């Protein structure tokens, strides 16, 4: 038998970036505990539409935890309280009948709110575009074994590459810092031979871009790691810190 629960939602409603925004209260009745959080919102939205009201805007795409589009702060926690889980993978069985859920968008100067729970995360794209790539000549792919990668580096690089850029780290950081995101993007390349030629320029350019976009500074609260649905570690931030330090010294030495 399918089990259902009733919830009270306090949802942030904001018509456009200029609107001041406010919370509105909705009753979500007969929500299947098998539903995901986004499916729960779908149900609420269908009812709103039937009543001729504006549905709650939220971002989503894959709904299987790999694209990084979804995300909202549920009762003060980015993507909700479940560890290593995106909002789309959060199931309603984690909630109790009668719970009140406060649902808010990511709140960061660098992520302006577009509408309701949807924020503009193109600041992340601009950081990637500034230096989060490697330059390769096109043509035949070289034989894989000509470029050796130590096993631990391959593992760590792959772990960093698991970042889906959802922005939960920024949302969870008391300073709205993007250090976990940037450090993952730096690390995935800094740990591989292909990332070496541009390594020291990349870190300086990407950090400069990160600052320019208006993210805060890291104060080592480590809330980002705790909130990350992909378990990106703050050891990446340590790597970013030392790479940036060395890159700055190196730039001075070279003039």
């Amino acid at each position, binding site marked *: 038998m399918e089990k259902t629960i009733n919830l009270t939602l306090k949802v942030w409603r904001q018509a456009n970036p200029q609107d001041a925004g406010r919370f509105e209260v909705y009753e979500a009745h007969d929500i299947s505990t098998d539903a995901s959080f986004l499916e729960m919102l779908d149900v609420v939205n269908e009812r709103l539409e039937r009543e001729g009201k504006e549905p709650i805007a939220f971002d989503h795409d894959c709904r299987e935890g790999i694209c990084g589009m979804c995300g909202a702060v549920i009762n003060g926690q980015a993507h909700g309280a479940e560890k290593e889980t995106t909002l789309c993978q959060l199931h309603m069985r984690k909630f109790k009948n009668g719970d009140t859920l406060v649902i808010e968008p990511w709140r960061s100067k660098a992520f302006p709110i577009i509408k309701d729970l949807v924020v503009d995360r193109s600041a992340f794209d601009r950081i990637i575009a500034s230096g989060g790539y490697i330059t390769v000549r096109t043509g035949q792919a070289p034989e894989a074994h000509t470029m050796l990668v130590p096993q631990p580096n391959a593992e760590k690089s792959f772990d960093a590459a698991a970042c889906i850029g959802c922005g939960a780290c920024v949302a*969870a950081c008391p300073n709205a810092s993007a250090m976990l995101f940037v450090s993952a993007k730096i690390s995935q390349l800094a740990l591989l031979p292909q990332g070496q030629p541009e390594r020291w320029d990349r870190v300086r350019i990407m950090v400069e871009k990160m600052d320019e976009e208006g993210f805060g500074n*890291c*104060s080592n609260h480590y*809330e980002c790691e705790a909130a990350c649905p992909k378990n990106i570690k703050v050891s990446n931030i340590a790597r970013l810190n030392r790479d940036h330090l060395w890159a*700055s010294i190196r730039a001075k030495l070279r003039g």
Partner: protein
Amino acid sequence: MGNSVLKRSIMKKQIVAISGLLLIGFLFAHLAGNMLLFGPPEGINEYAQKLQELGPILWLFRIGLALTFAVHISFTLWVALENRAARSGRYAVSNDRGGTDFATKTMVYSGLLIAVYLLLHLSDFAFGDHYGEATIVAGAETEESLGLYGLIWNSFIQPWRVVVYVFAVGVVGLHVSHGLQSFIQTLGFANDDVLPVLKTVSRIVGLLIALGYAAIPIYMIVRHYTIGIGA
């Protein structure tokens, strides 16, 4: 590009970290000197005398220390103001996830309390009169000045001063309990294996600093109310 390096977030944090570590170094050196207060008055008085005799070297050291404080405070406030600006509107509900802790969340406040207490502390002891009325201890074997020792003794037999001092060094310990591991992470020497160990070590060091400093006024006031200064 060259002069913009200082403005970069990571650089600012690393300047905070290095100045912070220098201050921790000073805390240990200062504590070691203060341990002389457990001995007879001559110990600390001669030590203070020797420091005075260093003359210009002492001043060089004082200026260096003042600069370190100035750099640490101005960069932390700069960073803190930027961080506040980076958050657009507060969350209606905020809930930690187990990453942060009390010491981390209160760094700005513990820091500011330290700065306020520091001014009081300097005017009391460092710039207080080491030979005047206030250095004569009632009930001591001699009616002459007990120098710096006498000044400190007379201060720490007043319960409210002991309370203020113990609270202040508790705040210092709290600040260091986050600061030490934060320093290592900020300079980039931490990894997944060492970070949990560093956090524990950092808390222990913070606690030791607080206990070490707090022991002195507690020793003095207990002695005052029991065996007295003479014995």
